[in-house]
Structures are given as C-alpha cells and as structure tokens.
C-alpha cells in the first residue's frame, strides 16, 4: 500500500486566487489591508445570494444553493488546495490499495459535531450510506458515489471504504461540499428536520431558517480542525452569518451598494462596471470547474441526429456577440467540454466553435435542408427546420437575452428556433426525465474531468430520481471505454491522455454548444475582509472572514 501523508501546514496562497481571477489591481486591495491590520473577532456578516435552497442538507437533492451555504457549517473528509491537490481535513491521512478498490481513512480523533456527537469511523460510514440511500433523493452525491459499496469500521478512528470499481476521482469528489460530513445522530432524524437544520462539525452552525428571507448561522466556539487550506486555525472570527436570499439581481447589488449587506454572490454582468467604479466594493471572481453553461443537442431525434446540422447550429450561433453585449464582455467564451479550472482541461478545443455562417449554410445544404420557405426558414420536403429549446425558470434575464440572440443569429442561416418558457414541473417532464427537446440548456459544476462521464456516457442515460445527466443521448462504446479507463488509471499522464481523447470525441461530434464557464462572482463591501473562495467547487468560504469596524 502506498502511504500518503500531508502535514497540516498552511499552504494557501491568496495571491493564487488573485492570479486566477485575472482581474485588475483593485481586487487585491483586500490582501494589503489584511497585512496592515490583523483580523478581529466579533460582528455579523450579511451575505446575500440569489436562490433559496429547498433543503440545507447537501446530501439531499444536491443543488448548488445547498452547497453554497453548507460549505459554511459542514467539514469535508478531505480538502483541495489551489493547485488541485488533495489535502487532509477530517481524515488525517489515507492509504489506497494497489487495485484502487479500498480506501483506508485514518480519521482525526478530536472532532465533535455541534450537537455533541463525536466524529469517528461509524460517523463516516453513516454519512456515506446516507448519501447513497435512495430515500435522500440525491442526484449529485449519489451519482458521485456509484462505485461505493460499503464502509468497514476497522477501529474507532479507521475506516475502510470499499469500491466496486477503481475510481480515481473519489478523493476529489469527497473534497466537495456536496459530500460534507454531518452528525450521524442528526441524519437519523426525519428528512424534514435534517433539511431544516443539518448538524455538522464546521466553524458555524445553523440556528434559524426564516423561509424566503434568511438563514442565521452562529460561530462554533469549539472549532479546532480547520483545513490546511485555511488562513487561520481555531474558531471563526465572525459571531454570526446572516445568509439572505435576494433573488432579484438588481436589488441584490443595490443592497450591497448601500451597505445593507456585506457580500453578494452571482453578481450580474451588468453590475461589474458600476462595482469596479465604486471604491467601497471589491470584486472576487473565479471560474468554477466542470462543464460550461451550454445547450446540449438531443441526438436521438431530427434534426440534431445529423452531425452536420449540429455543427451548422454551432457555426451560426453568434455567441461572442451576445457575450459582448448582454454580458458586457465580462464572461469569457468557452468552446470545449471542460472549464479551464477543471483538472485535465485542454485548451486545444477553444476556438472549435467559432462563428462561421458560410460554413453553416454549406453544411445545411449538404444535410438536405437545402430549400427555404417564405419566412427564410430551411425546409426538407414539407418539414421545417424547427429547434425546440425550453427555457427553465432558473435562467437569468441575461441568459434569456443570450438565447434570443442565438435565435436571431441562427435564423440567418434558416433555423426556426422556438424558445419555450417552462415551469420547473414542465421542465422535469419534457427534458430532465423526457426527451421532448432539441436543445437542453445546462451546466455541471464539479472538480473532476469525470464530469464528461456523467454528461456523455451511456451509463448516465437512465434517470436518477428526476434528473438524467446525459442530455445529448450520446451513446458510443469507445467513449464509454475511455472515460471508465480514465477512472482506473492511477498514472496522471495516462489519465491526461485519456481525458484528452474524451474531450476530442465530444468536440468532433459537436454534442453541445458551449457558452461560458460558470463562475463564482462575489462583490464585497469594504466592511468585510478575507472573504475567500475555496477550491473544490469555487464556492465562497467565510471561515477566515472578519468584519472591519
């Protein structure tokens, strides 16, 4: 067995974040202030986000708003640093069997959950079992643990996790907040109780949830097991976090400008300019790893079962123009199937989706859509080239405008794009579990290139709970083989090669129109200091934050 051990030294480099965000000097103002006057204890930080989670326990369901808040009160088994390396957290160290099927975790013995329960091997077992339990209706954590078989309690603080197949992304997904560790006593309660106030071992604990309004978190005074990626050790500086829900982006930004709230996330693109000009506000931006925001083609039916028509759609969509106007040039274009922040991302696939209406016209002619009707739409026989694109309620107005521009620019070459606004219930029926669409809009945030397997391999064609990850219907044995080999390969060079091949196959098949990487976009008022973005999912992390009085 190979033994890995990391000392708990602080390896976090704030400079890396700033380098990664690629922004001008203003964003670094926070660092210099930090060195001038140190952090102080006390005060409440008000954080405003857009969406209210349905459940605060990220094991259940598994949507981004859940993990945004649970990152503040749950610890993970392992942590991830800025370079993408796995570091200890609740597990001091671990051994991996040569066949990659058994992970033995050596756990910290000094950790308590905020309900007084002790963290041990049995607690870890209870958590992993909870995540894969169909009753939690998890579409995220359970998908990440499909290889999980069982946990064996070796001794009080040693647990051996058995997998059915080698899974090199296992530690990476364990570092994500979706797989945060909760008190085994608390997860035994009813689902409603656990959703309303999950109990973790983190630096804060949930005290109150006023629906539609806010969640109040309080400091965990006994906290002494911060991850090595943190800026300090011991209890958090803040007394309290007021986690507010302000769905309207304009209102959210205005609340920050007036100092009513200290930090906002999902800063809308139109607010970047005013935020940069405001001396009271700093920006903290970071792309999330995973698969970019995209429109995935339904390859199981006309017209996108034809590769040429898929490419023609991509070539005729003027995404760059839309990103410049609606998004004020604040969002970078993505063309590949992985975001740059994802391990094994290759830049070779940028530029493979460039706007080229001439080629689009030529491709459509070749594909037999060579005539146009009176309105300028292409026809084949009596059939019109209609593309049905449902618009879910989660889309921002900027996203809607982006798709309207795609609708207008693809019309030039003869696509009749039908943008249909739909409620969540309708979306589930037509698109999340059904196949009644031509393009499904989506994205997938995760810290491993294994995301390609969820989105494009045939094993994710079946519906888990209410959601089918594979939205293209792509079903290619060669691709399936490559992505499962990549999970078995322990060698990094081999993995890189395999994921390169996988990205190439997706690019050649024009399976999705990639738009822009999802990103964490924080705007911070001058009162809040050392608000950070963690590395596993690029999510805001308030453990090190403090209030400057």
């Amino acid at each position, binding site marked *: 067995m190979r033994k890995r051990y990391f000392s708990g030294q602080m390896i976090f480099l704030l400079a890396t974040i700033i380098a990664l965000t690629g922004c001008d000097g203003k964003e670094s103002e926070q660092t210099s202030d930090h060195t001038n006057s140190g952090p102080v204890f006390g005060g409440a930080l008000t954080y405003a986000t857009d969406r209210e989670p349905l459940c605060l326990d990220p094991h259940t369901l598994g949507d981004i708003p859940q993990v945004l808040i649970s990152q503040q009160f749950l610890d993970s088994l392992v942590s991830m640093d800025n370079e993408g390396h796995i570091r200890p957290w609740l597990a001091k160290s671990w051994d991996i069997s040569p066949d990659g099927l058994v992970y033995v975790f050596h756990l910290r013995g000094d950790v308590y959950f905020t309900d007084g329960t002790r963290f041990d091997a049995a607690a870890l077992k209870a958590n992993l079992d909870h995540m894969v339990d169909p009753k939690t209706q998890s579409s995220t954590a359970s998908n990440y643990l499909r290889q999980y078989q069982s946990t064996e309690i070796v001794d009080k603080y040693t647990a051996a996790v058995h997998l059915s197949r080698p899974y090199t992304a296992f530690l990476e997904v364990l570092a994500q907040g979706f797989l945060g560790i909760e008190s085994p006593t608390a997860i035994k309660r009813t689902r409603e109780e656990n959703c309303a106030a999950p109990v973790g071992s983190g630096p804060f604990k949930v005290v109150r949830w006023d629906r539609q309004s806010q969640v109040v978190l309080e400091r965990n005074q006994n906290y002494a097991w911060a991850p090595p990626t943190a800026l300090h050790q011991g209890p958090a500086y803040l007394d309290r976090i007021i986690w507010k829900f302000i769905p309207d982006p*304009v209102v959210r930004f*205005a609340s920050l400008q007036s100092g009513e709230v200290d930090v906002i996330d999902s800063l809308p693109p139109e607010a970047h300019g005013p935020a940069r000009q405001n001396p009271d506000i700093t920006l903290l931006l970071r792309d999330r790893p995973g698969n970019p925001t995209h429109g995935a083609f339904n390859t199981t039916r006309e017209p996108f079962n034809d590769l040429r028509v898929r490419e023609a759609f991509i070539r005729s969509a003027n995404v760059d123009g839309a990103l410049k*106007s609606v998004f004020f040039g604040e969002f970078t274009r993505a063309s590949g199937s992985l975001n740059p922040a994802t391990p094994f991302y290759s830049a070779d696939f940028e530029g493979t989706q460039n706007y080229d209406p001439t080629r689009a016209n030529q491709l459509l002619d070749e594909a037999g859509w060579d005539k146009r009707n009176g309105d300028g739409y292409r026809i084949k026989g009596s059939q019109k080239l209609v593309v049905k694109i449902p618009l879910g309620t989660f889309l921002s107005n900027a996203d809607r405008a982006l798709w309207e521009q795609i609708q207008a620019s693809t019309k030039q070459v003869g696509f009749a794009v039908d943008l249909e606004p739909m409620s969540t219930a309708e979306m589930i029926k037509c698109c999340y579990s059904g196949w009644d669409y031509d393009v499904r809009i989506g994205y997938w945030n995760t810290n491993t290139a294994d995301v390609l397997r969820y989105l494009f391999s045939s094993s994710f064609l079946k519906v888990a709970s209410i959601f089918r990850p594979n939205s293209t219907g792509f079903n290619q044995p060669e691709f399936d083989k490559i992505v499962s080999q990549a999970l078995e390969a322990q060698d990094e060079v081999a993995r890189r090669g395999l994921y390169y091949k996988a990205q190439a196959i997706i690019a050649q098949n024009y399976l999705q129109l990639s738009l822009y990487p999802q990103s964490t976009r924080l705007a911070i008022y001058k009162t809040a200091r050392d608000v950070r973005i963690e590395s596993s999912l690029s999510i805001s992390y308030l453990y090190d934050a403090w209030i400057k009085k």
Partner: protein
Amino acid sequence: MSFVATRSRFAYRPGARSIHWGALLAGSFLAFLLISASFPHLLASLDPLETMPERAFLSPGWGHWFGTDQSGRDVFSRIVHGSRQSLSIGLFAITLSMSVAIPLGLLCGLIGGWLDRAVGWLLEILFAFPTLVLALLFVSIFGSGITPLIVATGLSISPGYTLLIRGQVLVVRNAGYIEAARALGHSPWRIIRRQVLPNAIRPIAVIITMGVGQAIVWASALSFLGLGAKPPASEWGTMLSLGRDFIANAWWLTFFPGLFIVLTTLSTTIVGRYLQYRLEKRLS
C-alpha cells in the same frame, strides 16, 4: 393591477369641459395604437427582431427614439410591433370575459330567485379571489403561453363584470319605465326585449372600453412574471420584465413599455368615462 371603477355606483362625473379635451387626447392615443397594431411598418421602419449586438444599449436619441435594448434591437419598433400582441391579448380577453359575463349576468338579473342567489353567491366567492391569484391558478392548470394567458386573464376578470351586468339588469328591471310598461299591459317578454335588454346592455360599451385597458394590464402583469409571451415577442409586459435587470444601465428598457401600458389604461378609462357621460346625458 390598477383600479378602475367597475361598479357604476362608484363612477364619478367630471365637469363637461375638462372631459372633452381629455377624451380627445385619449382618443387620439387609442387611434395611434390601433394604427400601430394594424400597420406597424407605417410607424416603425426598423425590424423589431433583428439583433445587432454591437448596437446594444444605445440611449434614446435620433435614429432610436426610445434607445436600443440588450440585443441592439430598436425599443420604439418593438413597442409599436408589440402593440398588436398586447392589444389583441386585451381584446380577446375582454371578449372572452364578456361572453361569460353577459349571458350569465342577464340570466341572473332576469330570472332572479334561487338561481340568482346561487350564482351570485358563487360569483362573490370568485370575486373574492384577487384577479392575479385567479390568473395564476389558471396558469398552474393550463401552463404558460399566449393562449393560457388570454384565457386566464379573460376568466379571472369575468366574475366582476358578471356582477356588474347583473346589477345593471336589476336596476333597469326595477326602473319606473318598466313599471309603466307593465301597467300598460305589455307582455313580460316584450318588456324584456324592448326595455330591459337595450337599457341594460347600453353601458356595456363603456365597460368594454375600460375593460380592454384593464385586460392589457393584467396580461402584462402575467407576462411580467414570466408566464406569458414567448421570446422574442415584444409584448409590453415581457419587454418590461426582461429590461428590468438593466435598469441601472438602461432605464429606457423599462420606462417606455411601462409608459405605454399606463397610457393605454389611462386612455381607455378616459374614453370609457366620456362614453358613460354622453350616455347618461342622453338618458336624462
């Protein structure tokens, strides 16, 4: 969304002089709307759907009277072209609601008795449901889109109109000239046909005029909530809703569509009142 006296006892009678000017202005605005709905190309030469990303967010000025939107489309053209959709939603909705309200209202008012009490009771309950709540209920059943939008708007405003027409019939039924006709020995059917119906129906012109404005507002409220017209439609409520995010960068995206909604309701109200005033003057 806004309040217009739908119960005739609340309607007020302004001075004769002021109403002429107001009605003239309001009438001209409605005429302008009718022209833009029927022949939008006469008023706006630019394509309301053509996107030009490089011309996004131009402020109002020569070339683009109301500025351009986030996709570089001309806002004035979009409003003019959108008037067809907004007006027809209003007209269809009021037609639908009248085709429910008139027969039902007449029936209740004329037959009276247990039927009137039963229907009246039901209507009072439906009337208690706020229009938007009722419309949202319909949307939750029929789904979103233009047709459900019209149905939802039309049905949810009809209880109020039914009560109004029923009330009108009752007033006419008990009026002096009916008593007189009865004393003259006319048959009940003749009285209904010759006296009650014409007198009860006459105010409906007023109601419809005012109702169109109301229906447009309700429909745009639903569109504003994202439950109405499909993109890239330039229905006013949808425009307002999509432009709202950019209010700090481009106020004109929200202001002008809203202004047109306000002017439309205001004009239909004023013209409706004027009609009412003329009607009452003729009667007295």
